[in-house]
Every structure is written in C-alpha cells, then in structure tokens.
C-alpha cells in the first residue's frame, strides 16, 4: 500500500508485549505480509504499566488510534490478562470524559506467531480511522451530550 506523501495519514500506535504482540509483529515481518506504514510499534513488558492518562495524553498529542497487543491469558505475567482489561475499561471512561471516541483504543490478544490476527487488527484500525478521521478534529469539536 503506497502512501501519498502529500496526504496526511492517521497515526496508529501499537503497544506490543515482548512476549506476545511484538514477537507477532516480527513474525508478520518474517512472512513479508504487507500492511500500512502509518503504524508504529513500541515494545512493552506488560500493558498494566500505563495509567489511563497515558492513552489520553497520546491522543491529545496526535496519535489517532492505539492498539494494545498483549498476550491475554497466555502472558507470563499473572497480572496481565485481568489487569489490562481493567486498564482499558478505565481508559474508556476517561476517553469518554474527554470526548474521544473509545473505538480509537483497542485491545487484542496477539501471540508470537499470530500473523493473520495481527494484520486483521491493524487493518481494522486503519479502516476505522478512515471512517472517523483524525483525533485532533475530534478534540477540536465541541463535546456533545454523551450517548
């Protein structure tokens, strides 16, 4: 998928656990499976280290979508499965408060060889952002009564 250098692309941040999503992204690379280049993967030990404010701050800085790729119940960290789900729920609450569409933050269990699920998650986020647009536009818009 070639990017148009003149067209601004939404930015997708992928926080990927070393034991899961990050290795899954490497596997996707080894398979030479194509996906859009506006995706930036940062390795993490475990998602529970982030407070909900971290995600909101990232959106406010101009990250349009965030995918947390964790190891789910297959994590080496006991806290990861339940802790991450709780974190995402708290983050959704804060995002709603700040008028950020909660679909911009997704949680996905990605294993070390999950090439297809990795691509599916990325492509779904790309498709979503094509529909809902840039986060800065959303933040600039006046907040309407929540549903």
């Amino acid at each position, binding site marked *: *998928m*070639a*990017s148009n*250098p003149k067209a*601004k*692309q939404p*930015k997708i*941040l992928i926080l990927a656990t*070393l*034991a899961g999503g990050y*290795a899954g*992204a*490497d596997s*996707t*690379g*080894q398979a*030479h*499976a*194509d*996906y*859009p*280049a*506006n*995706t*930036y*993967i*940062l*390795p*993490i*030990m*475990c998602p*529970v*280290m*982030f*407070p909900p404010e*971290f995600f909101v*701050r*990232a959106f406010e*800085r*101009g*990250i349009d979508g965030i995918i947390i790729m964790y190891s*789910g*119940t*297959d*994590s*080496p*960290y*006991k*806290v*990861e499965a339940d*802790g991450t789900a709780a*974190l995402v729920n708290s983050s959704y609450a804060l995002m709603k408060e700040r008028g950020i569409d909660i679909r911009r933050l997704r949680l996905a269990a990605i294993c*070390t060889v999950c090439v297809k699920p990795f691509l599916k998650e990325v492509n779904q986020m790309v498709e979503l952002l094509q529909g809902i647009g840039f986060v800065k536009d959303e933040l600039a818009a006046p907040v309407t009564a929540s549903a």
Partner: protein
Amino acid sequence: MPDKQKAARKAASPDKEEVRVGVYTCHCGGNISHVVQCERVAKALGKMPDVVVARTDPSFCSDAGQAIIEQDIQELGINRVVIGACAPSLHEQTFRNTVTRAGLNPYLYHHVGIREQDSWVHDGDPEGATEKAVRLMAAGLAKARLLTPLEPIRLGAEKGALVIGGGVAGLRAALDIAHQGIRVTLVEKSPFLGGRMAQLESIFPTDEEPRQLLHALIEQAAAHPSITILTGAEVTAVSGYVGNFNLQVTQHERGLSEELAEALLAACEQEAPDNFNYGLTRRKVVYRPYPGCYPSTPAVDWEHYDGRPIQVDGKAVVLKDKPQVHALTVGAIVLATGFNPYEPRQGEYGYGEITEVVTLPQLIRILAQVPQGEPLIWNGHPVRDVALIHCVGSREIEGVHTPQDDGQVNNYCSRVCCTASLHTALELRRRFPEINLYELYQDIRTYGRGHEEIYNQAQSAMVHFLRYRGEKQPEVAAAPPGDTHPALVRVVDTLTYGEEIEVPVDLVVLAVGMMPSPIDALVDMLKVSRGNDRFLLEVHPKLRPVEMAVRGIVLAGTAQGPMNIQESLSAASAAAAKVAALLGQGRVELPPFVARVDESKCDGTGACVEACQEEGAIALQTFQENGHEVRRAVVTPANCTGCGACVGVCPKRAIDVQAWTLAQYEAMVDALAMDIPAFAEAEK
C-alpha cells in the same frame, strides 16, 4: 581513556550533563535499504537535537560495523547509542556487547527494529517505510536521551536445585544438573520413581523397553553423590527468590521397615484399585507397582489403607503415616510434574457405560497382562475386531464437544497419540494376527523421526483407516443382545466421500490426549503462569522455551505441554543447562528491568503494593527522617518481574520500571506524533 570518552562516561551519570547520541541506520545487506532510504533517515536524524553523529552502514552487526560504533564512542564522546536494524531479539545483545567494549554502560543503547517491522512489511511503499523509519528512530532517540546507566542485579546463589517430579524428565534433569557439580534434591509425589513412562511396555520408534531405560537413569541418579531422592514427598511451602528459594517438603512415611516389609507385603489382605493399571485391576494396599521398581521397598497406599492391623508372625501391626518435614534452600527449581492421560467423561464414546470401551493407556496395561502367545480375551470373549478412535480429549471444538468442569474444551493436539495408537495397532497385529484393526482418525500426525514409518507399516499391516471430521465424531453404542459383537462403532468416513460405516467390534480403544498433572497448589505457591491449555507456560516459546517468568524456575517435559519421551528428555536437558548456567558461578546476574522507587516522590500510598501480584516484590517500609516517620515503597529486585503493575497505579509517579519508564514512553509518543514538516525541515 580518551578525554571525550571520560566526558561521555561522566555525562552518562544521572547528573545533568551533555547528552551525545550516535544514531546508526543499518542497511542490513539490502534487507532494509532496498526499501527504506537509509541515507535520508540518517540525514533527518542527524539534524535532531543531541545527535552528534548519524551514520549508515551495510551491516553494523559485522566486525567492521561494530568497530565504527566503538570508535565513535571513544573518539566523539558518544554516550547514548541508537541503532535501527533487524529485530532486537536478534542483535540487541550483540550491540550491548559492542558499546560495553567501548566503555559505555550497555543500557545506554537502544535498538529500533526497522526490518521485520518496516522494510519487510512495506516494500510496496518505500516513501512510507522511510518516513516510518525516521519516526521510529526519532522515538528511539527520544528514549535514549532519558536512558540512565544500569547495572545487572547480582545475587548470591545457593548451588543447589530442586527437581519436582521423578519421571523420565525429572530424572534426566536431575542427572544433568548433578553432573555440573550442583547439588540436587529430587522430589517425587508418589512412593516410586519412573512416572508415566514406567506404565508403558514398548516405546516408539525404537521398540525399546521403557522400564529398562528408566532403570538405567534411576540407577545413576540413586548412586550419584550429589542427588538426594525424596519419594512420597511434596513441596508444601515456598518463599524467597532466584538463587535463594526456601522450601518446605513434606514426606510421607514409607510405613514399613526393611525387615518387616516383605512379611507385611505377603500378609496384607486389604486391596485398592491399582493405579499402575489405571484401575483395571486391584492390588494390596502394601504394594510394589511392578517388579524392579525403585525404591524396591514396598510402600503403603495411605489413601486407601483403612488402619486395620496386619498380622505378621502372630503380631498385629498397625501402619502409621508420620510425615517428615524437610527444609531446603535451593537456587533454582525444575518443574517436571508431568501429565495425566485424559479421563473420558461418563458416556463419552460409551466410556464407563460399555465395558468394551477402554483408553489406550488401559489397553497397554491389558496387553501387558496377556502372556505372549495367548489370545486376547476381554470380558470373557475373544477379541476379533478392535476400533481405535483418535483425538479423544484432544482437538476438541467449542460448541461441538462437551466442556469440562472448568468450562473449557481441550482444543490442542496432544501430538503423541497418533503414533502411540498406530504403534499399539502394530503390536496387536504382531501378537494377534487374526484381529481386524480400524483406526478412526481426523488427521494422522506422525511428525517425529521414524514415526511416519510406523504409519506406513500400519498401512502395510492391513490396518483399516476411517477418517472422520472433528465436528462429526464417531458414535459408539452397545450392540443389541444376540449380536455377533458387543459394540458397534458408526463413523461418517470422508475417505469414502461421507459414507456412514458401521463397524461391529469387540473392543473400542480411545486414544486419549494429555492433560497437565493436577498441581494447583504448587502453581499457587510458586506464582507461576499457565497457558489457556492449563499447561505451565514458558516466557517465550522460541527464545526462552524452558524458562518461566518467575526467575529461577524452569520447565522439563510434559508439565509444559504434550511431548513424546524424546522431546521430554531434550526439554529436561535444556532445563538442566539453564540451571547450570544460572547457578554455576554461585551467583545470579539478572537484567535490571525491575521497578525502582523515586524516594523523593514516594509518600507511601501503598497503591503499588496493592497492585503487585508478585510475592515479596514490593512492600511498604517505615523510615525515620528528620525526626519524622515516613512510609515508602521498597522493591526487592529479585522478586520483581518488571511488569509495571505498580507504575500504572502510582498517583505520584514515584515508581518506574528501569529502562522502560513512563517518561520514556511519553517521549517516544511525542516523537511519533510529531508533524511531518518537522522531518521535512530536518531533511533540508
């Protein structure tokens, strides 16, 4: 040491001093540069703040490439290094060594993966890939600015290991560890060594006698001066951490003195189901599972012994269990707790309702009791037709198969049952040539060396193959009275294009899969993780395949998942190698990626302690400061896994995981979010 390097070393201290970053973009022999315009990346990064030098090279991991980085550190006073190259899993350690050789702290280097996660996945979009490389490298630079020098965690280590499980994997691990001069305590829950392998009669692909092989291992282990064997024993308490685990092991009384053992065995009248034969037969409650077992002294089945006296030489002897408690300190623990065969639920393929339905492990024990040359009789009838059904308790499908008590189905393949089933079919063919054999399978997975030959031999030996689909399982029913055979198997056979075939049989054999041993208490005590399949979970299936996330605990054999004996032994030797590497020096060196408390910010809210799930990793302590009592969190690095659960909940941002701090992530996000013109400007 050159002056600039001294300056750099000084700058690397936490004091506010000049940060001087070297940024290196690797062509990776064209793997990256065929897509990413590395020179543009270097040019863009070179104009960013704090970057002293930005270079490219065909291969920075080569000796020549590494020499460039070393030279820059020494001659340009570089005190932070960012390298964009292949995946960190491949060369992160290489470059840590590079910067260390040049005199820089190894944790002042950051690796950015721009091959697997950039050039290899965006080869149709070189412009996008180049921009992405710039952003990722800029994020790496942002992190590098905030890196601080770190030292590995060094702990004294007890030069001893505990191996839990006395089956083939535990024995192999114990011997391999002991051969490295490390003291081993081998704890086996049952009164005898050997595990599941002792219940087999012949092992594929070599057709050797398993108990002979086990005997050789047991003899060596029992004779080894560095190995202590505790049978009838269980771990009942654990504390401490890698290098210094403190354990309590509770050992049941064997119950019999050497002098009276044989007399008690002979005189004992009470019986119980014989677990060695999977409950098909009964044995005395004073017993040996099989001739030649180790230890040879009979044991008492405390679960079933009812306390009645046993008459020996006119004396009434009452056996008493007085468990002994052993205290151990070890540096590492090997979990070789093995597996249980899947126990079909009542009525599954007629199991427990039709007496002609048995499991494959039961059939192996049945055959062991039939003398060579004698016919196979079951329930008083000669066996003429046998159906072996594969994948019982394996490859189950949610919505099709009945979930177990925990609500799960076993969706994994147990891997060994196909070959085991075919191997047993060949044994039946050899011993009872007149029997008709039917293998009902989904897929044949004879994946190991020499296993496919067993499949070929079974085909040549006129074993009939019927293939069913997972969502349409075969059905087993009792035949109507007066029928020629006691049971009837119905299968929709995809090999004959979906024809429903009825096979009248005398025996139905369920090739059951593997389930992990019931070790809930041990899992809770050790705080180790299990996968969705309930087997113990390694840190990483490829990169750290026998290590658990709890440092100092390693896996051997089928505790980790279905394996054949060869694989179990390989895993056991790998586990032993890990233990030897860990404890060989008498001290343990661990990565410094653990939580660290900023004392100036911590006011003892205790949120971190509440969030932490690692035993003994963090606690609140009270200190006296300027005449006041203050409470602060204190981390025990050896117990911390670096998950960061404490970081996310701290209201004061007073705790972070070293080298993975929240501030570093925020800086990286800022770099990623930077507007395009910033890069365009940088390229001018």
